[in-house]
């Protein structure tokens, strides 16, 4: 079976399993959104390696699996006792989603300040469908790629955050997406809508974890809108099951003088991809995407960024570092587009990769497309291994090889983690890096 036939088969299977939502008949606009998504999924081709954006991202393994949509058992909940649900020591508002469905019992939302809405999309559909309808009208729900279409066709729940004008959320919001696959492999499709009105501020941690059995496919579509002067610190921790597939498609729309800072950590998962589309729509906006990727074993870690400067005087900054520990593959595909009217743009893109093993592969593609002249844009990329002299230096001071390697790797990724403003999260990340290094050298 070739890829497209496989894809078709996969599609039919997933679609057949998706139960029509009882709510659909009452909400014609929603019914339409879902129908359009189904139609466009049937129409658009599954990406292959001939598609420029999927050139280095093999899909064969994913398409060979069969999944059932995780919409079947929304009653599935977790007990509050699972320690993994919280980053140790972090004082935060907490929302938990199990297989993409909100689990109110495991969540902790007491004491939310006025003007902050933290809820699930399903709740909103039941209680304030008109509000969601209005939002959907502003969102671009057209699905230009198969995975987004699949997402929209299947998704019935997810995260909804809204912060009113000039409201500052006092504590970080930690949102944990737990995959709890049963006997059959599932695909869960949580949607995410985050909107900050003018002058609002929030810190949001988006974290993925699993109950530890079997594999699954997490297909996330996030839409983030920042009003004028709004500021969002966005931390993404992707620590899926080692055999799991994860795709996050993130659309960010930024108005004037807004400030978006995303830090991503790809920690675990057999096939991880984060796909950004950032539109800078108002002047003086700043967008910063940074991240670290640990590529264990034969995993794939893939970061795609598209930053579109369409107005003057915006800044964008990208810095991604990866550590390849096994025979896996790191893909970085970044693109900065500066439209003719976007004068005084400043854009910087960096991607550094450290290969610690013999069979790893790095494919990187930092692109600039510039149609304006008064701009400062640069990009830099490196691929290499640990510096033998640095290792020697440490070893000559009595540090054993393993520790020395670990120190150098921690130092390499330190530039990313050091920028984390939440000490508890930073400690968590450093711990995860140390664990991965220990596991790799033990193997």
């Amino acid at each position, binding site marked *: 079976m070739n890829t497209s036939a496989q894809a078709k088969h996969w599609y039919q299977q997933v679609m057949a399993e998706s139960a029509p939502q009882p709510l659909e008949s009452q909400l014609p606009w929603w019914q339409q959104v879902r129908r359009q998504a189904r139609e466009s999924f049937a129409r658009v081709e599954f990406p292959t390696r001939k598609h*420029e954006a999927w050139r*280095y991202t093999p899909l064969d393994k994913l398409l060979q699996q069969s999944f059932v949509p995780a919409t079947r058992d929304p009653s599935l909940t977790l007990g509050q006792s699972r320690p993994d649900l919280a980053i140790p020591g972090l004082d935060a508002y907490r929302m938990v989603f199990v297989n993409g469905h909100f689990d109110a019992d495991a969540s902790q939302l007491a004491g939310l300040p006025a003007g902050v809405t933290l809820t699930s999309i399903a709740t909103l559909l039941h209680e304030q469908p008109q509000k969601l309808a209005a939002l959907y009208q502003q969102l671009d729900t057209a699905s230009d790629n198969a995975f987004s279409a699949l997402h929209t066709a299947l998704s019935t729940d997810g995260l909804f955050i809204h912060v009113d004008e000039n409201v500052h959320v006092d504590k970080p919001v930690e949102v944990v997406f737990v995959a709890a696959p049963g006997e059959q492999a599932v695909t869960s499709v949580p949607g995410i809508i985050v909107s900050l009105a003018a002058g609002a501020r929030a810190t949001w941690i988006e974290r993925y974890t699993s109950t530890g059995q079997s594999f699954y496919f997490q297909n996330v579509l996030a839409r983030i809108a920042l009003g004028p002067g709004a500021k969002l610190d966005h931390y993404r921790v992707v620590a899926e099951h080692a055999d799991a597939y994860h795709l996050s498609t993130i659309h960010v729309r930024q108005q004037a003088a807004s400030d978006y800072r995303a830090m991503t950590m790809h920690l675990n998962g057999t096939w991880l991809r984060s796909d950004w589309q950032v539109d800078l729509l108002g002047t003086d906006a700043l967008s910063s995407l940074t991240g670290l990727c640990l590529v264990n074993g034969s995993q794939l870690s893939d970061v795609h960024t598209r930053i579109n400067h369409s107005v003057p005087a915006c800044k964008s900054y990208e810095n991604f570092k990866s550590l*390849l520990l096994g025979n896996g593959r790191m893909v970085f595909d970044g693109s900065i587009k500066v439209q*003719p009217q976007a*004068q005084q743009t400043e854009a910087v893109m960096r991607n550094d*990769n450290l*290969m*610690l*093993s*013999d*069979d*790893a*592969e*790095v*494919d*990187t*593609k*930092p*692109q*600039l*497309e*510039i*149609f*304006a*002249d*008064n*701009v*400062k*844009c*640069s*990009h*830099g*990329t*490196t*691929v*290499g*291994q640990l510096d033998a002299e640095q290792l020697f230096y440490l070893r000559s001071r009595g540090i054993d090889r393993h520790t020395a390697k670990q120190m150098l790797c921690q130092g390499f990724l330190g530039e990313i983690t050091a920028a984390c403003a939440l000490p508890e999260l930073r400690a968590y990340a450093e711990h995860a890096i140390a664990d991965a290094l220990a596991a790799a050298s033990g193997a």
Partner: protein
Amino acid sequence: MNNDVHVVDNLIGRDYEHGFVTDIESDTLAPGLSEDVIRYISEKKAEPEFMLQWRLQAYRHWLTLHEPDWAQLRHPPLDYQEISYYSAPKQGGKKLQSLDEVDPEILDTYRKLGIPLEEQMLLAGVAVDAVFDSVSVVTTFKEKLAEAGVIFCPISEAVREHPELVQKYLGTVVSQRDNFFAALNSAVFSDGTFVYIPKGVRCPMELSTYFRINEAKTGQFERTLIIADAGSYVSYLEGCTAPSRDENQLHAAVVELVALEDATIKYSTVQNWYPGDRDGKGGIYNFVTKRGDCRGDRSRISWTQVETGSAITWKYPSCILRGNESIGEFYSVAVTRGKQQADTGTKMIHIGRNTSSTIVSKGISAVQGSNAYRGLVRIGQRAANARNHTQCDSLLIGDQCSAHTFPYIEVRNPSAKVEHEATTSKIGEDQLFYCRQRGLSAEEAVAMIVNGFCKEVFKELPLEFAAEAQKLLNVTLEGTVG
């Protein structure tokens, strides 16, 4: 600055100085492409049968291909049946014994272009193969080169006189099936240059080919094959010009370089095809496949290009670093102004151990020019200790121009060290101010800054041509800043 703007407007209108037409009679094949046209070209060149079969194979494969559409270029579709695939000055065909037999009009053309064809220009110390439309009209210093054992002749002659070398190497670097334009070239190439440097020989002089498109509605499809046998060295330069015409003319060349053990090939290009007028009317479409194969250990291929002409430039001089410790280099200055578009870059394919490559690309976009760097660095699984450094900088002059960078980096060996840097900016106000404050005009200041920007590449050119390239750059950029 108002005054400068005025000067600028005057200068932007500057004409292409090589745009004249030489009025000579020529044999030109009616437009159109078919197997018969290929048979005609092959017969006209009195080629052996293997060559004709090779051409036909290429043509049949070409029919199955589509024009590539991935480049950052926009142009109206090309009609391959509208082009004449063969044009030769009337005397062509029979072998010329000396320069005296060359049509004085043609000699005059080259004199106007500043190309030293006369033997008395010995002091220039450069052997020249002059290609006029589809044929090579004259090759200088052949005897002197023959003494050293160097073969330097039109490729049509090489096919007849050195078929064993041609058959052994032609198409081994760029196969007939390589890409759309390479396949087309393989089918219809009419002339070009053939160079063979024997073992251990350091070529006693610079070799050079000068390409001139003269006839209207023709395409030029030349093919260059350079073989540097073990331990040899050669430095080769090509230059190109064409008359100013309203229609677009196609130039689809293929260049193949083979460097065996310890051999070095230095290939420099100063490309100055007619770029079209300021509204983008006319100009040469330059779709070129250039590739070098570092086949032997410790071999080295270095590409240096200065691209100032052509309405469209689509070319990626590449190196296949097959031999251990082989070295590939790519130095490029590409200038686009008016409505010119360039999508150029290189591929460095590291296969052997301890291979290294350097890429320095300087793109300058002025007025409405569009300039893209597209490059691939691939480190294969067995290419231990491979090393690459890439630097691509873009300079923007004018608020309607554009500059793009599309680097691809694929690393499959952990001992590799790959670095890539790119910057894009316009000429700094502070730099301009500094120069002007010291009494330089805006023009001079820009020329100085741009030349500084390109210095790294110019220093790679053979001395005589470095001066020419610098002059060419100044002329091209005059009047683009205000």
